[in-house]
């Protein structure tokens, strides 16, 4: 059964909500506490330096992933709005 515009909009918004939820989850799982507890007062040496570098890189990748999820959510929400507008402009299709 084909989706109506309204149905499409609702599906798009549901996906957007899901992506935002995932972004929040991922943002909560950051590595800042790990980084905070990995300073010179904890350990020193090449291994410790490498640990700090890699954790910092990993944190940046997670941040980018969170941003990307939010961007996808935004795009989906915009598409949902456009679908709503199309539905309103189409006679016989309930808004």
């Amino acid at each position, binding site marked *: 059964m084909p989706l109506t515009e309204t149905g499409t909009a609702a599906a798009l918004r549901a996906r957007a909500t899901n992506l935002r939820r995932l972004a929040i989850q991922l943002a909560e799982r950051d590595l800042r506490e790990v980084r905070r507890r990995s300073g010179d007062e904890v350990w020193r*040496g090449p291994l410790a330096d490498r640990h700090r570098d890699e954790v910092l890189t990993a944190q940046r990748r997670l941040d*980018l992933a969170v941003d990307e*999820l939010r961007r996808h959510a935004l795009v989906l929400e915009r598409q949902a709005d456009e679908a709503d507008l199309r539905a309103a402009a189409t006679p016989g299709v309930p808004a």
Partner: protein
Amino acid sequence: MTVLGYDPFLLDALRRHVRRAADSLATIRDDDPLAAEAVRVAREVHRLLELDWLPAISAVLGDDPLCRPGAIASSTDPWAFPASADGFAGGRRLDDAAWATSFDEYARRRLELAQLLVDDPEDPAARRALAALDAEIAAAAARYTAAAPRDGHVRWFPTAVLDSSPMAAALVLRHLRLDDRTLAAVAALVLHRWHDGSDHGVRWPDAFAGGDNTADVLFRVLVDRPAAAAEFLRRVGPDELLLAAQFDDSVSRLLLVGTSPAQVDEATAGRILRPLLDWLQVHGEPSATDGATRSAPAIVAAAVTPWLADLGPRAARWGWTYDDGDRALRWLLTRPAARAAITDALAARTGDLSEAPLLQPDGRVDDELVRDLAGTFAQVQLALRDAEIDDAEADALLAQLALDTAGVAISAAAPSGPIGIAADVGVALLTPVAIDALDRWGIAPSAEGATRRAQQSFGDRAIDTAVMAVTGIVGAAVERGDLPPDTLDRLDLDGLAGPGAASCSPREVSDRLHAFVADLEPLTDPATHNALLAVLYAFANPLSDAQLCA
């Protein structure tokens, strides 16, 4: 100058936070294609923490090069704080709950790593992490054992493993220095608990994870301790054994080790194998779900093979009737996998019969055993015929059984004789002289001989058995120098009547064997001669000839 150093307590706190971060990232999942990249990043960061940094930090804490003695291994371990040499932390003994929590944490991490290896069995980082974790588990178990009270006359029982999850208990069990009986008892309890499930009967997490489950781990531990394996098998029921392991090989190895004639006596083998045979006949083959030993009939058949006589002539020694045993044998023989397993098991055990007590200490033949061997042989022949098993398959099984039976006679007559070299079929009992002779007549158990066997055997496998046994015994005596090198040339088996001839080939062979053995009497020692007579009595006697030639 590079400054190296660490604070063990702060580093341990860092390890805990890395652990927490890795665990939280492991829960990130989503099916939306737009989330695929984010999920991939989360997994990669999880792997970085789990496989690279946790082992690295644990290694620093575990090795503790700057602080020995009094190293901190990890804070999941109740001995995370400096322990005295006698295994007490600050003079107090830690309770079971603390140890159980520690063991559970190890089990949880190991299941995660095992799952990674299921996804990619060659993952080098996961393999390294698994090895490091196993070393951690061994060290924790050693500390737990060291803390065991030694101030009584009652044997120590590792009660903490009964507070932990069954998987954790199974992982730790290998490293506890337990005697065979205690190991078997604890392993059986752990398996009971695994079957019971956790709270409200919910199955334990390892039942759904990839890789070995609790039963697999337990069974592999027991395989390395044969006496404990036998004791364990006496304690668990057929369903507990056959409806548990993820991998059939762990059940198979456990059952073979725990019921081997080298390990248990006849009665004990019966106490283990009879319930399994009864259970299989009632319940049939386990269905194809995880935790069920799908090849159970073949596994049980292989374990039963050394005890075939207890399914027939010696049934009373297993506490059941001949009919019960015969029914079980026929149930096995009507299943192709079980038939193949018996054939393979017979082939594998040929050459391992030196303990067969065919001759009594005074050199007399054990009549009962000879009768049992012949009876078993006939019973299998009848069962195969009644089940209308394909000729080639039945012949392969009977050929191995003939060789196995002949091997009993050969090994009894020449227990310390020279070892044969027919390595292609693992026939360690036949000397080169005997193999040459058998090959000439087309019943040699060599690869080449096997291809001709069906056409050139002497009309019946029982007669083949007699020829093999007589040839093997005489060949061994020749190798020892007790008989002249050309002795086997006197056994003339050429020019026999073919199929459809007026005379009967089995009877002719039987007559020639009897004449040959009679001729040898003045030349052989009493033990060898008695063994030869026993073989003729069992497999080439006038009654059997009459039946074959009727």
